[in-house]
């Protein structure tokens, strides 16, 4: 029976069981309805505007049809997903439940025990607490805010409200609407004017926050003249029993500021990874997305930059690796909405064992964006006959006075290259690895060192058995 909570939310208190604050036993259930959205907002003790935002988003999610223009999303069953709390029968996920191949990968990457458990979703914390605390103190002195998104809403309500949902509105697309309705976790970063954060901020340093969830929401605000490099994810496989990961990232880069956002995604191979990432770059600001996609069953992700004032710059670097049963559909969008804006997109995709990897992107130049420049380069490397690469470069150019270039290559590893390396004593599989590493090198060299090293090792592992 539905009743009204003190916050004015219609909920079935018995069903959710949170009438008893001493004994919070949640009988969370699968599927999504208005009650669940209300419950999430209530549980988090959110202000009314956020509850309204969630409900509005939920309505839009319900109305909005599944997108049909890209990969097949027909197998996602939204009714089979837990949107907030997982069923808690006292057991939870234990180390024994983690599949053997994931454990092996951890071992071979040389990941410390505690971190392994964290990555596998069975340990609560990653042992970098002391490192994090020192950094946090330094950042706080500079006025930098680095919090999980839920805490930021509580601690900085006005700042939060000013920017949240302004870059990616719930109406943007169906999965963004879903995220807006049920979001939880993610990072909130605020960099004050002129402050340059010289150490990359890494999501997994933020240990006191909840683990990266299914519907995380990240908001980064760079005040004029500031700089930050935010690093998300990690190269070790992220094991999850959830079939859907749908995040939203919003970034505001103000005049003369620069933001770089690096992601290495290696979800387990059952996950649909549908992420909306967008930045707005103001006068002379620079936004850089570095995006690596290795895992998941299907990834659709097109980091975008809206260049809305003169002199804004965008750079998008994307790597995708698709093995058996995987489809990587990454890319990027650059919107030139002001004169003298510059952008470049470099995409490198690798497919093997029947995998599909490619590039889907949009270059939009509005009339009046005079003197703007855009260069797109996408290279695909196909490692065997079974695999494929798809390239969908969309261009909408409504201004004459611009320079837009597009280059695309599709290549196979040549026998000549393999023979050349082997003639120097290098084994066939290592030769193949070297060629693949060389192919992605232009992007890998942009990664923080430890990520670059791990990424190379990981690709070497994915490449095993690729040469007879």
């Amino acid at each position, binding site marked *: 029976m539905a009743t009204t909570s003190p916050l004015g939310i219609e909920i079935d208190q018995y069903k959710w069981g949170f009438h008893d604050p001493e004994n919070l036993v949640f009988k969370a259930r699968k599927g999504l309805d208005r009650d669940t959205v209300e419950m999430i907002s209530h549980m988090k003790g959110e202000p009314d505007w956020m509850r309204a935002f969630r409900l509005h988003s939920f309505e839009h999610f319900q109305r909005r049809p599944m997108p049909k223009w890209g990969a097949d999303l027909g197998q996602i069953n939204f009714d089979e997903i837990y949107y907030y709390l997982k069923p808690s029968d006292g057991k939870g996920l234990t180390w024994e439940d983690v599949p053997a191949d994931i454990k092996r990968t951890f071992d071979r990457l040389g990941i410390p025990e505690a971190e392994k458990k964290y990555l596998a979703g069975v340990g609560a914390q990653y042992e970098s607490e002391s490192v994090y605390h020192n950094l946090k103190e330094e950042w706080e002195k500079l006025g930098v805010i680095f919090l999980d998104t839920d805490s930021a809403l509580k601690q900085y309500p006005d700042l939060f409200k000013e920017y949240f949902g302004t870059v990616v509105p719930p109406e943007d697309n169906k999965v963004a609407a879903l995220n807006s309705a049920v979001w939880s976790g993610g990072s909130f970063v605020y960099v004050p004017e002129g402050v340059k954060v010289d150490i990359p901020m890494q999501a997994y340093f933020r240990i006191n926050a909840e683990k990266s969830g299914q519907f995380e929401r990240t908001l980064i605000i760079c005040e004029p003249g500031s700089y930050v490099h935010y690093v998300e994810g990690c190269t070790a496989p992220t094991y999850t029993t959830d079939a859907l990961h749908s995040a939203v990232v919003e970034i505001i880069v103000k005049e003369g500021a620069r933001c770089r956002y690096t992601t290495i995604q290696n979800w387990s191979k059952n996950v649909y990874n549908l992420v909306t990432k967008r930045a707005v770059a103001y006068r002379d600001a620079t936004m850089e997305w570095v995006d690596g996609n290795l895992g998941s069953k299907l990834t659709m992700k097109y980091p975008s930059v809206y260049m809305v004032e003169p002199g804004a710059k965008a750079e998008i670097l994307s790597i995708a690796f698709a093995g058996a049963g995987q489809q990587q559909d990454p890319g990027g969008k650059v919107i030139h909405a002001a004169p003298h804006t510059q952008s470049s997109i470099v995409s490198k995709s690798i497919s093997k064992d029947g995998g599909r990897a490619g590039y889907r992107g949009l270059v939009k130049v509005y009339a009046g964006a005079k003197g703007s420049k855009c260069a797109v380069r996408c290279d695909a490397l196909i490692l065997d006959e079974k695999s494929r690469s798809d390239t969908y470069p969309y261009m909408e150019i409504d201004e004459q006075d611009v320079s837009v270039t597009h280059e695309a290559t599709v290549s196979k590893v040549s026998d000549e290259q393999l023979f*050349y390396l082997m*003639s*120097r004593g290098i084994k066939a599989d290592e030769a193949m690895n070297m060629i693949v590493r060389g192919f992605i090198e232009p992007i890998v060299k942009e990664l923080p060192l430890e990520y670059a090293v791990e990424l190379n090792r990981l690709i070497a592992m994915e490449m095993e058995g690729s040469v007879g």
Partner: protein
Amino acid sequence: MADLVIRDLQVQVEEKVILKGVSLEVSRGEIHAIMGPNGSGKSTLANVLMGNPFYQVTRGDVLYKGEDLLAMAPDERAKKGLFIAFQYPVSIPGVTMASFLRTAISARRGYTNELIPIGEFQKILKAKLDALKILDPAIVGRYVNEGFSGGEKKRAEILQMAILEPEIAIMDETDSGLDIDSVKVVADGILEMYRAAKGGMGVLVITHYSRILQFLKPTFVHIMYDGRIVVSGGPELAEELEQHGYEGIRAQFEVIAAEVQEEGAVRRAGKVFWVVH
């Protein structure tokens, strides 16, 4: 037995027979030259010895230090000390020379699961670059053969050879496309390695021209024609070829053709004329 023994080697690409029965022996400490016109099969021989999968061996065999060379993958051949300096080295984008050389030397020196320690590698690299003086050391930071000039590619092959310290090295038209000064520099580099090689190094030089041979002074010169070695001799054979061309050799051959057919091989004025099947 010689280190490298080639017996009656027949090779084809798809349906086309390119080598029609080549026999040759090369040992450490020897310098051999194979000369011949374009299309005679010289480069094919070099590539087959290294194991290029593009070619099919249809007859004959090759022994390397008594083992069946043709049964080995190219990397095994390299590890056992065989080397080829390619005529057209391919580029490997994104892979630096340093990383490539370190991986290669690790394999040659028997490191199986790890690479040679970086310090040791750098010491070797510096020593080789200093000794050869044929390349700007900055080359090691560039991607393998990517954007190299023709001369740089050839010199980079020599650097690889110096680092891998082969026992038998095949130089496939290393002199072509080099100006005469570069030919001397490269030849000096090869000779330096030849003299310094512990246990000796055998060199098989494949060339159009005698000019590199003026510097290398091979002990044996072989002339290849239409997929066969037709004449073998000493260094004077190269000079003779330079003066009289292949036509001059052919004229001599025609005079004794019947005799060669009967005997299989006929020795005349320090040259051996081989039977043409």
